[in-house]
Every structure is written in structure tokens, then in C-alpha cells.
């Protein structure tokens, strides 16, 4: 039952917020906070269920082959944890920034949270598409929610391209239904094995293209830099940290279930897209002057690392990819939140224009530096560990090329993150060694978001060290084993 709550609780919040607003005309901050806590608790409960004792729950009492089944297993659980953490962080930042004012924003926000949980839990292909639609519409609206013309334009582009992705995904789903008459994801692996090869090609093309578009992989990433850089800070953080990971989950789940045993070069295609994303993302981020746009392109590259891990098509590779997804959530949310904070205080997003960091907490710059080091891949931090694992398993499973791309990407990313960090650190050092008189003009204040990012920075270090700890490695390996265990998934869903 707890699985349904993970979807229903945020959905209920999303519907209650307008009601509250209609009746009392204001939206108290603590109410949104309580709602956030409730949906966080529901998501975490589902994640725990999935991790400790994988479970399925049937909706409406229909048998699993007819109705919709919600499933939480060891692949969904870490993604659930990741998204719920991302949603909670983003909500805290939003509440801190906007208070209870924009009720529409919060309604959409909870709708997004509900749909993310739905995507992670559902075992029905069409239901997945439905949740994807809610997810996408909510995301378009959130991107445009600041109502500036850049945000509107970015939201519109996201809408058009996202709809194309959804269209392809829907086409794939329709072809599957036409070919097999089944939409249950646990029954499909077997049913697809008798589908003619040509049909399977069309199906896999549609599904992979649709999901790759939503993920933001390289040749079809065009919506991502605009959307991530034009949205407000909490939304950018959520988009980069949690939203693209949900699509990564869907891609992993679907490609493992449908195409692992049914051949076809799906995993090879995912690897190619991953390599292209790594190189393309890093090259486009290089020479980028807008910090948020740079971070957005860096997200494209990091998605590439995850895709390379998924493309290994082995338990170890997928485990490494999930590890990198979690790490990227920590690092990129931290980077977006700290840089958003810094940019707002400095008054510019241009790296070259950062001259004076008056009012910026030096600790904020230090935290930003930690995240930058982690995402570049400096040894004890988590980014290094997950990239190393991806590199290790991709060499075993897919050859040397992805590993070399990862190596090249590390150097390019070091070059551009060096530019950002040296601009920030340089101005802080100049300020501290310069005239001390005007320091107290607008003194920096500690905020809840900087506490959260500080925690994330510590988590980055801990996750990096934990990756060397054998029990941690084996529990991560179990994620990958769950992902490639098609029979296990079928047993879980069908209750046999």
C-alpha cells in the first residue's frame, strides 16, 4: 500500500494547494513544508520497501496482466531516494526564496513530484507514458514559471521538443501494443522475443529516441541548456539533479527489460550516445561564459557518463551508472544552488564579469569548489569514484573508446571548471586581502540552502570514500543485478 501513497501523497498536495489558496487566500510556508515532508516520507517509505523487501501492489484489484501494477525493487529504490532528496532540497530552496507566495508554482511542483514517483514505480508501459506526460507538462510550466521572456522561450522549446520525445515514446508503445497486445512490462520481454526483427527495430528506435530526448543525450539535447539555464535556481537544480535521472531510470528499465535478451544493438546505441554526450557536452561547456549554461552543458556530459555505464549492459556497469546518477544529483544540485546564490548576489551570470564578490559567503565559494572538484573527478571525492567504476566496466564490456572519451572529458571539464573556480576564488581572495573597510556594506548571511549544499559537499566526500568499502560495493552491485534480472522482475510483478 505504501507504494500507492508515494504517488498519491504528492498528488493530493498538488490538488490541496489551490483549494487552500481559494479558501484562505494565502499559502502558509509551514503548510507547504508539512506537505513536502509528507511526500518525502511517502517516497522514502517506498524506497525503503523497494530496497529491503521488493514489493508490488495491484491497483483496483485487477489481476497483474490486466491492471496497473506498482513495483518497487532495488533498481527503483535508489532512484526514488535520489529524486525525493532532490525534490526536498529544491522545495526548501524555493520556500526560502519565494515563501508561500506563488501557489501555482507549488501545485505544479507537487504534481511533478507525484509523476516522478509514478514513473519510477509503474510496471505498465502506457501508465508510464501517462506519468511521463504529467511529468513533462509540469516541467515545462516550472521552467517558464519565472515568466521572463528567456524562461518562456526556453519553456516553449522544451515543450515542442519534449512533445516530440513523448510522441516517439507513444509511437513505440503503440507499436508494442499492436505487435503483442500487452502493455505489462513484466510480460513484454517474453512477448517481444517472438516479434519480427523489423518491427523490433522500429519499436526500439522510437522508444530509445523518445527517452534519449527526455534524458538530454547529445544529438537531441537542444532543449536542455536553455531550460536549465533560464529556469530559476531551485528549478534548474531540480531539472539537472532529479528530472533527467528519472528519464535515465526509464531508459535503463525499458532497455534492460525489452532489449537485453532480444538482441538488437540498443545497448551499443546507448553507449554511442553516451560517448557523444561526454565529448559534445564538455566541448560545448568549454568557452561558455554563462555559469548556468556551462553547468547545463556539463549535465549533458554527465548524462553521457551514465549512459556509457548503462550501455555496458552488465550488472556492474549499470550499478556504476546508478552510482554516478546519485553522485551527479549531489554535485549538480549543489553546483546549481551555490552558483545561483553567488550569481544573485554578484548580479551577473557571466564568468568574466565576476570582479567583486561582495556579499558572497566565502564558505559558499568553498562549497562550490568542492563540488567542482568532485565533478571534475579529483580522487577521494564521489565523482572520481563513479567515473572510475564506469571506466573500469566499460573497458571490460564495450571496449576502449568510451574509456578514452571519459579520460578526455575529464581534462576538458577540468579546464572549464578551473575557469569558474579561479574567477570566484580569485575575487574572494582579492577581497579578503584588499581593503577591509567595505566588507560590512552588505554582509553575507547564512541560509538554509547553504546548509544543505554544505551537507551535500560532505556527502560527496563520504560517498567517495564509501565506494572503496566492499559491503557498499556489493550492495551497489545488487542494484545492477536487479536491473538485468528479467525473470526476477516478472516474478515480482506477476506475484508468481
Amino acid at each position: 500500500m505504501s507504494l500507492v501513497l508515494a504517488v498519491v501523497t504528492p498528488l493530493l498536495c498538488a490538488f490541496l494547494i489551490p483549494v487552500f489558496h481559494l479558501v484562505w487566500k494565502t499559502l502558509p510556508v509551514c503548510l507547504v513544508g508539512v506537505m513536502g515532508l509528507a511526500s518525502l516520507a511517502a517516497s522514502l517509505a517506498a524506497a525503503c520497501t523497494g530496497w529491503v523487501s521488493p514489493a508490488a501492489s495491484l491497483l483496483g484489484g485487477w489481476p497483474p496482466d490486466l491492471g496497473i501494477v506498482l513495483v518497487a525493487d532495488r533498481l527503483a529504490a535508489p532512484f526514488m531516494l535520489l529524486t525525493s532528496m532532490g525534490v526536498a532540497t529544491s522545495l526548501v530552496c524555493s520556500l526560502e526564496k519565494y515563501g508561500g507566495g506563488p501557489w501555482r508554482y507549488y501545485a505544479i511542483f507537487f504534481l511533478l513530484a507525484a509523476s516522478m514517483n509514478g514513473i519510477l514505480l509503474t510496471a505498465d508501459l502506457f501508465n508510464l507514458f501517462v506519468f511521463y506526460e504529467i511529468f513533462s507538462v509540469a516541467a515545462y510550466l516550472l521552467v517558464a514559471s519565472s515568466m521572463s521572456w528567456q524562461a518562456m522561450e526556453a519553456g516553449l522549446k522544451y515543450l515542442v521538443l519534449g512533445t516530440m520525445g513523448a510522441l516517439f515514446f507513444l509511437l513505440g508503445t503503440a507499436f508494442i501494443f499492436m505487435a503483442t497486445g500487452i502493455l505489462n512490462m513484466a510480460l513484454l520481454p517474453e512477448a517481444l522475443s517472438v516479434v519480427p526483427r523489423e518491427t523490433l527495430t522500429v519499436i526500439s528506435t522510437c522508444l530509445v529516441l523518445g527517452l534519449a530526448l527526455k534524458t538530454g543525450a547529445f544529438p537531441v539535447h537542444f532543449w536542455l541548456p536553455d531550460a536549465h539555464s533560464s529556469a530559476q535556481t531551485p528549478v534548474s537544480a531540480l531539472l539537472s539533479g532529479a528530472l533527467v535521472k528519472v528519464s535515465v531510470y526509464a531508459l535503463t528499465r525499458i532497455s534492460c527489460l525489452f532489449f537485453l535478451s532480444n538482441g538488437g544493438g540498443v545497448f551499443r546505441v546507448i553507449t554511442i550516445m553516451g560517448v557523444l554526450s561526454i565529448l559534445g557536452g564538455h566541448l560545448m561547456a568549454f568557452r561558455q561564459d554563462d555559469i548556468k549554461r556551462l553547468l547545463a552543458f556539463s549535465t549533458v556530459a554527465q548524462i553521457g557518463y551514465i549512459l556509457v555505464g548503462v550501455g555496458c549492459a552488465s550488472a556492474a556497469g549499470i550499478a556504476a551508472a546508478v552510482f554516478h546518477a546519485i553522485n551527479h544529483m549531489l554535485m549538480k544540485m549543489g553546483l546549481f544552488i551555490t552558483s545561483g546564490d553567488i550569481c544573485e548576489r554578484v548580479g551577473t551570470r557571466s564568468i568574466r564579469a565576476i570582479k567583486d564578490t561582495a556579499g558572497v559567503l566565502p564558505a559558499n565559494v568553498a562549497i562550490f569548489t568542492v563540488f567542482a572538484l568532485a565533478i571534475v573527478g579529483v580522487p577521494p571525492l564521489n565523482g572520481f569514484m563513479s567515473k572510475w567504476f564506469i571506466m573500469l566496466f566499460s573497458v571490460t564490456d564495450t571496449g576502449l573508446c568510451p574509456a578514452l572519451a571519459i579520460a578526455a572529458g575529464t581534462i576538458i571539464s577540468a579546464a572549464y571548471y578551473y575557469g569558474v573556480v579561479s574567477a570566484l576564488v580569485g575575487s574572494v581572495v582579492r577581497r579578503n586581502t584588499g581593503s577591509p573597510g567595505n566588507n560590512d556594506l552588505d554582509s553575507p548571511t547564512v541560509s538554509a540552502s547553504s546548509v544543505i549544499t554544505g551537507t551535500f559537499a560532505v556527502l560527496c566526500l563520504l560517498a567517495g570514500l564509501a565506494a572503496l568499502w566492499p559491503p557498499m560495493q556489493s550492495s551497489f552491485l545488487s542494484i545492477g543485478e536487479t536491473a538485468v534480472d528479467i525473470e526476477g522482475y516478472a516474478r515480482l510483478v506477476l506475484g508468481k
Partner: protein
Amino acid sequence: MIFPVAIDTFSLTFAALAVYLTITVSIYTPGYDDHMRGYGRFIYRTFPWAFCLFSCLGVLSGNWFLFTIFVELSSLVLFFMISISDTSAAKLYLLSQLAGASLLLTGTAMLYSATGSTAIGPVPRNCLWLFLCGLGIKAAFPVLHFWLPAVHSRAATPTSALLSGFAVKIGVFGTGRLVSADTGPTLLLLGSIMAVYGVGRALIQHDAKRLLAWHTISQLGYIVAAFGVGTPLGFAAGFFHAIAHGLFKALLFLSAGSLEKVCGTKDLKQLGGAAGTTPLTFVFFLVGALAISGCPGFSGFASKTMIKAALHESGNTTCYWILQAVGAGTVVSFCKMGYMAFLRKPVKNPARPPKRAPGKRSDNLRNLGMVLPAFATIILGLVPGFFAGTGGLDTHYLFKTANILSATGTLALGLGLFVFLRKWLETDKDPIPDADMLVEKGVVIFGNICSTLQTAHCGMLRVYIAVTVGTGIVLSLLLR
């Protein structure tokens, strides 16, 4: 075991060298950075120890993965030390070392997939090139040396001493771990090229520290060639020369730094007569110069004799004579440096007088710091038994008349050449393009590629949609 270690004579001696050099540098530094305050001073005083820690952990670690991690961390520490004096050199250093570490990690991953283990030691043929490229950036193999001269000459002196004394030796250490039948000819060839090219470049330098940096490459060539011989004697000889070079090159860098501190410049054309003003610095320079030239009684003589013996024993006569010639070139180069900086009459109107007359105390501290490597250089030269023993030689062999004659012959030849070429060496040469040109050009081309890619984000939805549909078509072809 979470931290596998590889403890043997090779790694322990390198760790000891790291500690010894760090002690040297931390005595020397207070005499060098007395004009600095704040962050810079803090970094100069504490970071060498962090470097020492990571380097020791690196050389002692028992698999390539940990080796790479610690080496990368030690490079990061040096990056901070370089960035105090020159940020662009620091960036070049950071990126080049990261490239080396990434290649090394890729090689490690490949090694693991081929053999199921990453234990430190020789690697199979198919991943050897990755290891050689990765370590080659650290150890300044030809073309991969693009970062070394710039970084060594632009870093502050204590940092250059650590760089040349130990940081590049970590690359050499890794190369030493790789030695197997497969590596032989490659390393011999690479070593000979490095030795010749380094000394040739050094001859046309007029920047004292850049000259020393090129000699580092040349001497690394000796070590790499010795490893390339592949016999136990060759390995021991390379090992000995690595340790000896770490000590005397640190000494040379520190004396060049002292010279710069006292005279206000490190440009040989503007220096002169420093032997009168700083006699002690001259003595230390002389010890280092005699050692690097292979004068009997100093460590360089013993180690170079071992290298030559190893080459002779295995019949690599070409390489043997190349290294002999390089030895003579080294003598010429150091005669030039000694003559121009210390012995000749002071140049009129030095460009920059020293900003502030250094205090007596700082002079003493610098000299005290330099005593340590000078002492070790002489001791290793007089009692080379330990290293000779690891190669299966006894001390008497090294001091055979033939060997002493060969070394003094090289010295005499070098001196003669110097007297003959003095005027030519003193004049300016046009800059000859080097590998760092490739980097500069490469960065420009790379930037253009990036700009081109960014123009794809034109903001026109029809382009985006066309690309999406095109990707779909390509995907369907790939998935066929």
C-alpha cells in the same frame, strides 16, 4: 585489503628521497619566501609536507589504481604551490598531469579487464602504450614533455626543486615498475631521444631555471635508457641515477633560486660575478654541476658509470656513445652556466637590482637547506656501494681506472668544447619551435571547434526538430 602496499628497496628508497627533499625544501623555504605574507606563505610552508605524504603513499602503494590516485593528489598539491607564483603555468601543470593520470587510469582499467588484477608491475603488451603515455607525461617523454620547461622555470624555486627532484621521478618510478622484455627497445629509443634533445635545448637557454629544466629532461633520458636495457644492472643503474639526479638537481635548482634571490634575476645574460658576492651558493652550484657532469667523486659519476656499464654489457653501443656525447654536452652547458652566472666579470647595468637586500638569516637558512642534498650527493659519490650492490657490482668496479678516465675524458672534452664555443654560447639564439608550440596551436584549434559546436545552438526550433528526426533515422539504421 583496502590498501595494498608494495614495499621493497625500490619504493622505500624513493620514499626516503621524498622525505629528504621535503626536509631540504622546508629548511630552504623560510629563507626564500621572507617577502611573502598570508596565503602564499602558508602554502609554501605546509604544502611540501602534503606533497611528501602523497608521494610516499604513491610509491608505496601496491596497485596501479592507488598509485594513480596518490600521484594525482601530489600533483594537485604542487598545482597549488605553482599557482602562487604563476597561475597559467599552474593551469598547464594541472591539466597535463590530469591527462597523464586519466591515461594511466584508462590503462589500469584495461589491465584489470585483461588480467583481473591491477597489481603494480609489468603490464601486458596491449595496455602498455596507455601506461607509457600516462607515465610519459609525468616523466616528460619526447613530445609529452610540453609542460615541463615552462612549469619548472615559472614555479617558485622550492617548488621547482620538488618538481624536478621528485615529481618527475614518480613518473620514472612508474616506468621502472613497468620494465619487462616488451618495454626494452621502446625505452632505449625514448631515453636516447630525451637525453639528446634535452641537452641540445639546454645549450641554447639563457634562463637559468629553464636551462636546468631541459637538463632534467636530458637526465631523465639517461634513466629511461637504463631501464630500457632490461638487465638487473640496467635497472639498478636507472634506479641509482634517479635518486642521484633527484638530489643534485634539487641542489642545482635551489642554488639557482638563491642566485635569483640575491641578484634579482635568473637571466644568465644579465648575471655575472656572482661567485664573489655569494661564494657559498657558488660552492653548492659547483657540487651540483660536477655531479651532473659525472666528475669522479660525485654521485653522478657513479650512476652514469653504472648506466654505461649496463649499456656496454648488453651490447647497446649506439646508445652508449649517444650518452657519452650527451655527457660532453652537459659539461659544456654547465660550464656556460657557471661561467656566465658566477665567474665572468659582472655585466654593467644589471636590469633589475634586488628589490630588497635579503637578510643574513635568510641567507643562512637557504645555505643550510642546500647542505643536505650537497652532502648526500658527495656521500653517494664516494660510497656508492648500496646502489652498486643492488645491480650486482662492487664499488671497486666503479672506480676502475678505465671508468675514471672515461669520465674525466668527457669532462675534458666538454671543457675544451666550451672554450672553443664560448662566444657562440653567450649570444642570443632565435627561439626554435618546441612541443609547447603544438599545445598553443592545439588550444586555438580546440577553441574553434568548441565555438563551431556552439553555433549549432542557433535557437531555431526547425533545426532542432530536423536534427532530432535525423538522429531517429540514424538510430533506426544502427538498430537494424
